[in-house]
């Protein structure tokens, strides 16, 4: 187990370094950042000044190593746009996005697990079909569009929830649904197939034969085993949600990490973009690592493979 975990950690680190390097390169090949940083209508002299000030005139490897070394010491640099420390801004925004991500995950699980269970115990009935329909819809609808539909229906027509903002829990309801719904199908299909496998296994038949109540068989015996693959997917989905909240945050004007990422790219705020990519990839790598280790703990066969 220790060997397996070490191997995974090494791999995760490698992924994080590669991602940070690639993102560093990509923002630079898309054009000379000095032009964007200098602002509209800057003169050639001002652009040259910016290039020198931010060290953009040095070889790209030197720039990367300099940045990576500082990042290792926790210094993610100054944002030329906000003229503030990148870490301070990110810390604040990440909290908002984490809240949104966690509540969306909770929503997705609350919706998908009961639906999955229902679909599994009544396979090929209308219940199964409805559950399937809900899940397909979730996957097929662009979250941007779904967000707007929610605004239109619950915000404009019914006026149950505020249209945008993040100042109270009511503001989080619509974005939570919009973000969470997208993850629902993955959880639901996994729960359904897991449940169906388990329900047809011998120990469930034995449990039933012993005369246990059907609810107790379902939840105590079947669900516990069926949900194992869901647990590992949860970690990965949370990563997706943090990354995917860009659109939702923009639609609902939730001032979070995703929106910051999106806007930082537009205003060529390089230190901010790099830091965001680094943090996001680290979160993602950590979550995947966590899922891998958890899976290995739950299922010894994985450790050998």
């Amino acid at each position, binding site marked *: 187990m220790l060997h397996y975990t070490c191997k995974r950690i090494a791999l995760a680190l490698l992924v994080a370094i590669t991602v940070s390097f690639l993102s560093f390169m990509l923002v630079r090949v898309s*054009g000379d950042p000095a032009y964007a940083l200098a602002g509209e209508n800057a003169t050639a002299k001002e652009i040259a000044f910016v290039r020198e000030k931010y060290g953009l005139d040095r070889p790209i490897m030197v720039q990367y190593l300099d940045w990576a070394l500082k990042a290792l010491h926790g210094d993610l640099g100054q944002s030329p746009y906000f003229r503030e420390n990148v870490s301070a801004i990110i810390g604040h925004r990440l909290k908002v996005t984490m809240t949104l991500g966690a509540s969306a995950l909770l929503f997705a699980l609350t919706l998908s697990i009961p639906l999955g269970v229902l679909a599994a115990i009544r396979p090929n009935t209308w219940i199964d079909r409805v559950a399937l329909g809900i899940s397909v819809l979730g996957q097929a609808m662009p979250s941007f569009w779904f967000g707007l539909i929610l605004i239109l229906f619950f915000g404009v027509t019914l006026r149950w929830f505020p*249209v*945008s903002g993040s100042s109270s829990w009511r503001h989080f309801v619509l974005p939570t649904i919009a973000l969470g719904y997208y993850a629902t199908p993955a959880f639901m299909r996994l729960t359904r197939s897991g449940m169906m496998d388990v329900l047809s296994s011998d120990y469930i038949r034995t449990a039933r034969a012993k005369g246990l109540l059907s609810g107790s068989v379902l939840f105590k015996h079947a669900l516990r085993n069926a949900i194992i693959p869901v647990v590992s997917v949860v970690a990965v989905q949370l990563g997706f949600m943090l990354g995917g909240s860009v659109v939702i945050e923009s639609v609902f004007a939730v001032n979070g990490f995703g929106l910051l990422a999106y806007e930082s790219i537009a205003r060529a705020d390089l230190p901010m973009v790099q830091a965001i990519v680094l943090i996001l990839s680290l979160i993602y790598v950590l979550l995947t690592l966590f899922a891998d280790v958890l899976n290995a703990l739950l299922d010894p066969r994985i450790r050998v493979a």
Partner: protein
Amino acid sequence: MVEITKKIAALVTLVLCLVVFSGTPILANKANDTLNFAWKKELETLDRYFNTAREGMIVSRLICDDLLYRNPDTNEYQPLLAKSYRWIDTTTLEFELRQGITFHNGEKFDADDVVYTINFVSNPDNKILVQRNVNWIQKAEKLGPYKVRILLKKPFPAALEYLAGNLPIYPNEYYAKVGPEGFGRQPVGTGPYRVAEVDPGKKIVFVKNDNYFKDSPKGQPSIGKLVQRTIPEMTTQVAELMTGGLDWIYMVPTDQADKLSRVPNVKVLKAETMRIGFLQMDAAGRCGDSPFSKRAVRQAINYAIDREAIAKNLVGGQSRVINSACYPSQFGCTQEVTTYPYNPAKAKKLLAEAGYPQGFSVDFYGYRNRPYAEAIVGYLKAVGIKAKLKYLKYSALREKTFANKTPFMFLTWGSYGINDISNITGYFFRFGKQDFSRDAQVRDWLELGDNSIDRQVRLDAYTKALKKIADEAYWVPLFTWVANYAYSNELDFTAQPDAVPRFFLSKWK
């Protein structure tokens, strides 16, 4: 199983009830004297000198006052923080200041504030972002507690325009203490509104300054409280406006503005702005040999495009066709120049005369309003010119421009809301990086106009330059842009060509 379903159903009902009954009723904003407005932009700082955004200007004009004020109706300069002003000579401006004005934090306004602000921002070491606003200033001097002089590096006739809206005066003691960072978070001015709360990137709350000096030409603020929110998604802004969460939005895309105009209680205004569109052609041959070095080709392109149709059908609202290389209200901007009405037959004839009977192919660069550019491509195709549209980000386009790789461009220019022609012709015809005509005669006339403070000398020089620009067809001047505003019909709001809303002039009906 049935039992579980029942429990779930009960829980769902409970949650729904909670949600419905906890809903706060939407208050009419007129009733609580609060104007809620939004824009997309997240302002990096509220210090006007360290942001370049239009929104920064809006905020600055609410909080701060300048020495002068340009009356938006008459375009005349009126003393604001100054009591009077006069030119001592071509490089010296003298101001008598008003007495008895205090900043929002209680600091007294006097000559020290003016001298400190002007000297701080004009010192290049302090690196304010828009150097053009200040690089004409040599320094400010105090002549008495309420008397100052501003010395110019050289004659600069547009100085009054800059002093009337782009040079807000800051409280010297406070600014020296908190610096640009502190001021950016908690700005203090003498203006009609003071900042009560700042939640960076989310909202700014302004409260009416009850002590605003009575004879200000800006008038007295009427609405008690202004709440600005940053909402990046336009559709969300529209939804907020429809539900009463917002009372005012702007920069609404035309299609959404048209739909909004059918919503009761919402008023839509498509007001003309100072931004103009134009095609720039490489007459100087900066990008190598090109058909644009021939005047007939440039004239043909002028004749080929039905600008009237694009202005009317695509831009809409108050958009109008322009004929010279500037916005009509700008000082010196005559429209009495050679015009090129839509005439594709004449365009074809000119092209044939120039040696291009079959037309030619060219890369056509643009960075905004793609539908307009596509319409232009269509018109050019009709006379045989195959313009291959290349859309770039503004910064990338400029990089290419500086590297002489853009022979044909669709550009726009807003002159930063400065009502003086020097802010547009100065960039495009005085041999700068953006000048693709490089006409020494035009440059000399413009330099004369830009450096003289005699109105008539300026007018004559600009007229000559604009006439030659039109005769030579260096540009295709297109049309003016509009800004679409949508707001509650309880609000009395007037738009200005610089698209800087002046909420201190707004009131409830």
